[in-house]
């Protein structure tokens, strides 16, 4: 068995890599002294993949919104009952989540890793879906959708995506709607499964106090061989470069208004380490402009316009990217005004190099802290993997980051024409 070892001595971590003959890649990051072992099995398939051409077919397949998430729920069902029960007997915690561009199955355990791992490998590779169980799941997912309808943070997030995007499916709720999931049936679920759960479209990541040989051997034996096949053609509608809208609002049962605002980014063609570089640069910029040590944050805070709930982030995927920042505020419009004013000022006067140096150091320190937790490592690993990079590539990006590039990205990303605002008002 061919195992590749990469050591990252500066942070005391090692990455083991193995590739199965079916094209599936597997990674192990050992964590000595940790009780918890965390394994994820993920496919490059999420809520945005609602239009595609199945390899070997000519016609475009259009599927109901929310189907990737629905399939995630249904995979837990096996011929002999729910696989959850088998995990429970071992005392471990199975779980799964669906994102915009990936579906992730996982468990965490402290004992009997290989038995748990076997369950994970088996159930993800062996769907057993009946019409009856599909109908039953509609009630459960219906309540999940209802829960999110009442969640003001979730709503302001998706409303902002709706302001950014006119056509891109990233604006559609991951779970779909009660109406869209009513159209889901067994046949479409299998079609999606067979298209996107091919080993070459998947990845396994294991983190914990484990030996690479035994983990990879288990993968070698238990991943079914699949013939190599053509790429799946993923179809996305043409998206406009500018904003769809610059303002959206909704009323919900909240006491203070909540807002999210951000810049729609244009990153076409950016992938691999380049996309990581862009991500780190925008995050450093957000920290410099509106982080807790910034003049802007402190001005907004002392005027009572923001509070501790204020946060920011940047997302970049294969064909969409945006920054987002928000929290609670009695006057989101005033916040937007002040932030816009400050950004204009930076465009005129330039950024501060000292701020940049200090924040780069801080951001790197915080990145290091993520290696404290096996689940954090796994989540981060999977979230960047399908962008063609692994988490350790961040180290190189931090080390090579420079002020000139930061300035370049500042003028590209923080363009006030691309700034949209989403507000959730008290009902």
């Amino acid at each position, binding site marked *: 068995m061919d195992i590749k070892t990469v050591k990252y001595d500066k*942070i*005391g971590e090692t990455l083991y890599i193995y590739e199965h003959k079916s094209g599936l890649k597997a990674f192990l990051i050992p*964590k*000595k*002294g*940790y*009780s*918890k072992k965390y394994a994820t099995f993920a496919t490059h398939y999420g809520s945005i993949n609602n239009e595609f051409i199945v390899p070997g077919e000519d016609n475009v397949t259009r599927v109901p919104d929310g189907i990737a998430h629905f399939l995630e729920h249904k995979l837990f069902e096996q011929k002999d009952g*729910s696989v*959850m*029960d088998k995990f*429970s*007997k*071992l*005392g*471990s*915690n199975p779980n799964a989540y669906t994102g915009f561009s990936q579906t992730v199955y996982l468990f*965490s*355990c*402290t004992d009997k890793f290989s038995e748990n791992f076997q369950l994970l490998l088996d159930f993800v590779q062996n769907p057993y879906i009946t019409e009856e169980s599909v109908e039953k*799941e509609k*009630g*459960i*997912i219906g*309540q*999940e959708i*209802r*829960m999110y*309808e*009442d*969640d*003001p*943070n979730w709503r302001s997030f998706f409303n902002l995506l709706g302001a950014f995007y006119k056509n891109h499916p990233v604006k559609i709720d991951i779970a779909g709607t009660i109406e869209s999931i009513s159209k889901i049936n067994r046949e479409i679920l299998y079609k999606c499964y067979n298209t996107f759960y091919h080993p070459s479209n998947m990845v396994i990541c294991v983190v914990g106090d484990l030996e690479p040989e035994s983990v990879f051997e288990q993968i070698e034996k238990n991943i079914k061989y699949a013939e190599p096949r053509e790429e799946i053609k993923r179809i996305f509608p043409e998206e406009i470069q500018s904003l769809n809208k610059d303002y959206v609002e909704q*009323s919900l*049962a*909240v*006491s*203070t208004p909540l807002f999210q605002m951000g810049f729609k980014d244009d990153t076409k063609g950016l992938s691999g380490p380049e996309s990581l570089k862009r991500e780190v640069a925008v995050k450093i910029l957000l920290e410099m402009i509106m982080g*807790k*040590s*910034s*003049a802007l*944050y*402190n001005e907004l805070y*002392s005027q*009572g316009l923001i*509070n*501790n709930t204020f946060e920011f982030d940047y997302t970049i995927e294969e064909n969409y990217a945006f920054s987002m920042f928000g929290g*609670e505020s009695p006057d989101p419009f005033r916040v937007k005004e002040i932030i816009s004013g400050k950004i204009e000022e930076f465009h005129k006067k330039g950024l501060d190099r000292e701020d940049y140096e200090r924040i780069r*150091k*801080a951001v*790197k*320190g*915080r990145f*290091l*802290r993520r*290696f*404290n*937790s*096996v689940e954090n490592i796994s989540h981060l690993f999977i979230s960047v993997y399908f962008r063609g990079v692994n988490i350790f590539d961040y180290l190189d990006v931090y080390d090579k980051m420079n002020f000139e590039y930061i300035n370049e990205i500042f003028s590209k990303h923080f363009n006030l024409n691309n700034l949209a605002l989403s507000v959730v008002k008290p009902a």
Partner: protein
Amino acid sequence: MSNLLQEETVSKIASFDGIDIYSIKTDKFKTSSVSIFFHTNLDRERVTKNAMIPAVLRRGCRRFPTFQEIALHLEELYGATFDCGVTKMGERHIIQFYIEFVSEMFTEEGSNQFDKAFDLLYEIITQPVLENEVFKDEYVKQEKDNLKRLIESRVNDKMLYAVEKCLEEVCKDEPYGIYDYGFVSDLKDINAKNLYEQYIAMLETYPVQVYIAGSASDKSVERAIEKLKKLRPKTDGTFGDLADKKLFGPSPESFNKSVNKVRNVVERFSVNQGKLSLGFRTNIRPDSKEYYALLVYNGILGGGVHSKLFQNVREKASLAYYAFSRLEKFKGLMVVSSGIEIANKDKALEIILQQIDEIKAGNITDYEFESTIKTIETSVKSLKDNQLQIVTHYLGQAIANTSDTFDDLISKTSRVTKQEVIDVAKKIQLDTIYFLTSKEQA
């Protein structure tokens, strides 16, 4: 890196002036941390001010007089994290301060990370920005506004709100019914002077626990202890309202409340989904032998995917996406909560109550029982992988007046029998049925 350090156990390394200092030595994390807890009893008179104190202290200290300067300093410390706030554990109100920072072995110049971080935390707590010998008025005014908004924003997270509100309704005439962050109506009487007075009382009289976790050197720990010896120079040696029963577990009067009649509470919001919560009195103390059987009881009822609630409310009846039960260890309470279609309230309530009766009647399958024990074992072992959870575990032990290590907790839980669970089930009383519903529902 050495593998010499043993399991994540705590040792008390110093005790003086009502201050207990604990060390949790481990080198498996990239970071180290210091947590400082001030304890007091939860009461209406002090709760809102206690909530205000950390909010004002975090705004600045003598060396770093603004929030911005503190933030700048934290960035210099390789992005150290500082946080503070209040929480309740049973009827104990806890003011907490915490700093976490990258361990020295990962910093470029091997700087005195620990000393610098500890000093910052210590100074934020003990050297506030003063104006006319009391807190700075501007900070107090602004933080009053922030606290008001924080209290009012509770309703934004309906899932959490429905759980907390239900338990507060159960204890509406007892200290536990008080929200950790206090009352909006009590804010108007708070000013820089009376807040400062309570702060001095906190500093001088509330019992304190300090937890140092990670890979700090002995020299640095020694230095920290020396500093803490100066924390309360003016103390009269009484150490606050807990002095006489200094951390002897929850008081007897906070337990043994019997239920005469089940109360129904309905609260209306503009919502799509209803949240049904049931509040129970378990009548079981955290320092009793029965507590371990209660842990198992809770696991069988609603502690995971194997539980009766998950299996019956979600998997069989498809009524909900989530349905769980949770214990409030220090006050002997339990809450069951589920998000459901509003029209399905009666049906969901019936199924939930059925599950409770099933356990009472002894209908516990081997699968439910064994999965529960193993699930608890996994979750306890997992705590050891998180520095803050290790600290919280030992803080909880101190408050319960128990001294279980992680292994003790696992072995005591594994010895629980089905009969003990059934005995516990018989003691548990439903107290309040809380329903968060839409404005339209009849």
